[in-house]
């Protein structure tokens, strides 16, 4: 399977995604510079974490104007898989490919820590290797991960089963105490209407080797690989 990892000025998890896919999961992977418009020939595009354009103005607000985003939109339109992680999620929101905005964390502080996530919908190309209700341990690292949408959109997301991961405790219970950043309804990941663009605040590429503390992030990438195999 062929992955493309997009590097924006200020991306800093691009190398981590590359390492996870190429060295750990033995997949084909290429970096794509943000000035490139042509993103054909890939099975899945990844918008990695980091601080594109320093997060100046607003997270993802400047990166959405990068030439590569025109290619990404077209890629999505044709049904290609796109995964936005952390800052990548924020860019996809700014680009209108995913709903909602990220507010500052409730604590008004950057938070780097492991969190637990409950898989709410396993019938997506990004979670098809998981069980419904399964709990994943994956770290977060962000200033602005406080997911917010207006009420109608939230109802719509719920109705269409588009909330994919929610912050929970070790046992899978969802509560205020298990919400690290104040995200509405403990939302950690959502998917677009077409079911081919996932945004997630936690970093699956950081939970890929047991030596680093968790391998649960593999399940996200392995789901993508599996969905491709099933599609043929």
């Amino acid at each position, binding site marked *: 399977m062929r992955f493309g990892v997009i590097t924006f*000025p200020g991306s800093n998890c691009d190398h981590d995604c590359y390492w996870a896919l190429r060295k750990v999961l033995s997949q084909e992977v290429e970096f794509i510079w943000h000035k490139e418009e042509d993103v054909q020939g890939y099975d899945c595009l990844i918008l990695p974490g980091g601080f594109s354009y320093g997060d100046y103005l607003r997270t993802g607000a400047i990166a959405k104007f990068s030439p590569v985003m025109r290619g990404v939109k077209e890629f999505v339109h044709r049904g290609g898989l796109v995964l936005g992680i952390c800052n990548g999620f924020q860019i996809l929101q700014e680009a209108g490919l995913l709903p909602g905005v990220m507010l500052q964390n409730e604590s008004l502080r950057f938070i780097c820590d492991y969190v637990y996530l409950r898989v709410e919908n396993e019938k997506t190309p990004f979670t098809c290797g998981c069980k419904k209700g399964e709990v994943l341990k994956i770290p977060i690292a962000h200033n602005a991960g406080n997911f917010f949408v207006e009420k109608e959109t939230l109802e719509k997301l719920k109705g269409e089963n588009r909330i994919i991961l929610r912050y929970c405790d070790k046992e899978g219970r969802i509560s205020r105490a298990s919400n690290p950043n104040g995200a509405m309804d403990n939302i950690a990941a959502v998917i677009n209407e077409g079911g081919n663009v996932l945004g997630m605040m936690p970093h699956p590429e950081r939970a890929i080797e047991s030596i680093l503390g968790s391998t649960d992030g593999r399940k996200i990438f392995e789901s993508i690989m599996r969905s491709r195999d099933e599609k043929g």
Partner: protein
Amino acid sequence: MEIKVTPELVAQHGLTPEEYERIKEILGREPNFTELGIFSVMWSEHCSYKSSLPWLKSLPREGENLLAKAGEENAGAVEIGDGWVVVFKMESHNHPSAVEPYQGAATGVGGIMRDIFAMGARPIASLNSLRFGNLESPQTRYLFDGVVRGIADYGNCFGVPNVGGEVYFEDTYQENPLVNVMALGVAKRGYLASALAKGPGNPVFIVGSSTGRDGIHGATFASEELNEKSQARRPSVQIGDPFMEKLLLEACLEAIRGGHIVGIQDMGAAGITCSTSEMAAKGGCGMKIDLDKVPRREEGMIPYELMLSESQERMLLVVERGYEEEVKAIFKKWELNCEVIGQVVEEGWLKVREGGEVVASIPPHSLVVGEGAPVYKRKEKKPKYLDRVGKRLKGRFPPPADFNQALLKLLSSPTISSKEWVYRQYDTMVRTNTLLPPGSDAAVIRIKKLNKGLALTADGNGRYCYLDPRMGGRIAVAEAARNLICSGAKPLAVTDCLNFGNPEDPEVFWTFARCVEGIGEACRAMQTPVTGGNVSFYNQSPQGSVYPTPVIGMVGLIDDLDKVTTQWFKEKGDLILLLGENRGELGGSEYLRVIYGMVGGGCPVLDLDYELRVQALCRWGIAQGLVKSAHDLSEGGLAIALAEACLASPEGRVGAWVDSLDGPDEVSSLFGESQSRIIVTVEDEGWKRLKEKGDNSGVKVRVIGKVGGDKLKIGNLVDLDLGRLEDEYRFSLVRIMEGRS
């Protein structure tokens, strides 16, 4: 209009009349205003090391695999195998952080990162060592909060994990906090870059940010005492832009790999002045610089300001002639300034022009440390205060009213309690190399391409150095090495950051000299050469000087990643062993300070030979696969070490029952800070073998208890639920900083 150089102006620039006479001798005439500014920053304590240099030369600087020696390059470099090199350095940003904590700390991170990638190495980890006053003061909380945010925002955006460090709180740092930042990078040997200019005709580039008026006289500010007027120095503090630095990093590494960079140097203190003169002096050549070509962010800047600006995120490059366009293309890709501002010339002068006029003309070697910059042999006098506090306490100590309460009080004191509040704000994991994040004896990162690990630590107990500077210096090094050993590493080399008061005060200078002696002795014994670092003097306010505070950054190598060892207890039934022994020392302890508000009684004595034997034993046990956890005993003594080992595991806490104490009395055996002690956990087999090995090498090894249960019990003195301990340990700092809720 040219500003006239008067004796008052010379004095305002921090130059002595004798120094001014020397400038006239060097130039053969009176300097103009711009030249005066250039000499004043380059000859400031911060840039010239004029007080410390004779002493720094006494430190061991030779060692196996050392590629760059102290002072030779932007940072020290040590080869670790297969042609891979680690590059690391520590620096202070104390004065800027005292008046503008957020930017002061942020630009401290930025500066040290540039030192690393100017060597051609990619930064992969950072640490910090912080000292603040009493947290009950709102001013301290403001400084602490600002410094942590500054470090976090810069490092997180730049994309280098902050993997460890230390924070102390003592009244002595109330007006003058210490902010020391260490960074480490890796490079292939063939891609190391050098900070020198050579090859007449080669173009000189300025790359990165535009030049503004920020940070003018930052180096001079760092070379004076803090006082009530220091707040007016806020404009001397630079403003950081981590996004710009990230672009600069990628572009510089790409350019260096291109193979046509002759030399490269960061523009930190003293900006264009320092980078041009140091690179030229090092290459034994001159340079001509045309200020008209410098990209600016403000109008109407005069040559003086351009030469002295400390605007961040800039580098000076000397490029092989004929490859200008290649280099420009790389910086264009990253959307960065990249302008030719001058040329390397044969004649040994730094000639600066503006509008076609020569505005400064100085021999570069006359400006730089170790060459033309002044060096002073400062007076020393043993401080009087030592008569009062330096004498070692002897005899048995009366027990506290309640050992449980004493332990809880110590555990919740800001210096000892968990620093989770701090490091949750740092991205500790980016780059996916962090095997041991903050919270164990040392941080451990892996080098992916080498499949080896590096252990990193920063240590320094200012109180010990205050009570006995030479012993304190020794202990700082020994403890750093012990932390690395406990994590499964072999110590390699040291970078140091020496924070002291006014060096012109003979009592302060005496403490400096003794600390350096202690550091030197210990570094020689541990075979860890000093690869470089930084001296920060004038850490002094009207309330007096801060404690003499050398901070030792140490790097160790872990050949086998299976041998990475953590401080926390693992399994029920494991035996807890104490390596080393309690010598009944309470002087200088956290216990005396927290429980009795007392700073005195000398500090623990460190016997270097015994220390080495304890470390060797622990290292042997880890290599043999016998040791399941290892934790060094430091502030708070055995009781605190046990509590930490019960609480620190990310898998959840586990209890311990300890029934065997040693030493002359109960208080010192629980809370004394005698050196050269490590607690390890083992199974039966490990106990036998470690005991035998210890007997042979003259190290006391005793079983003191067992792992298990949901309490920490120490004899009949301490009996506490882990929940209670954890609440005090983990949340005390959060409660102070976020308000009680």
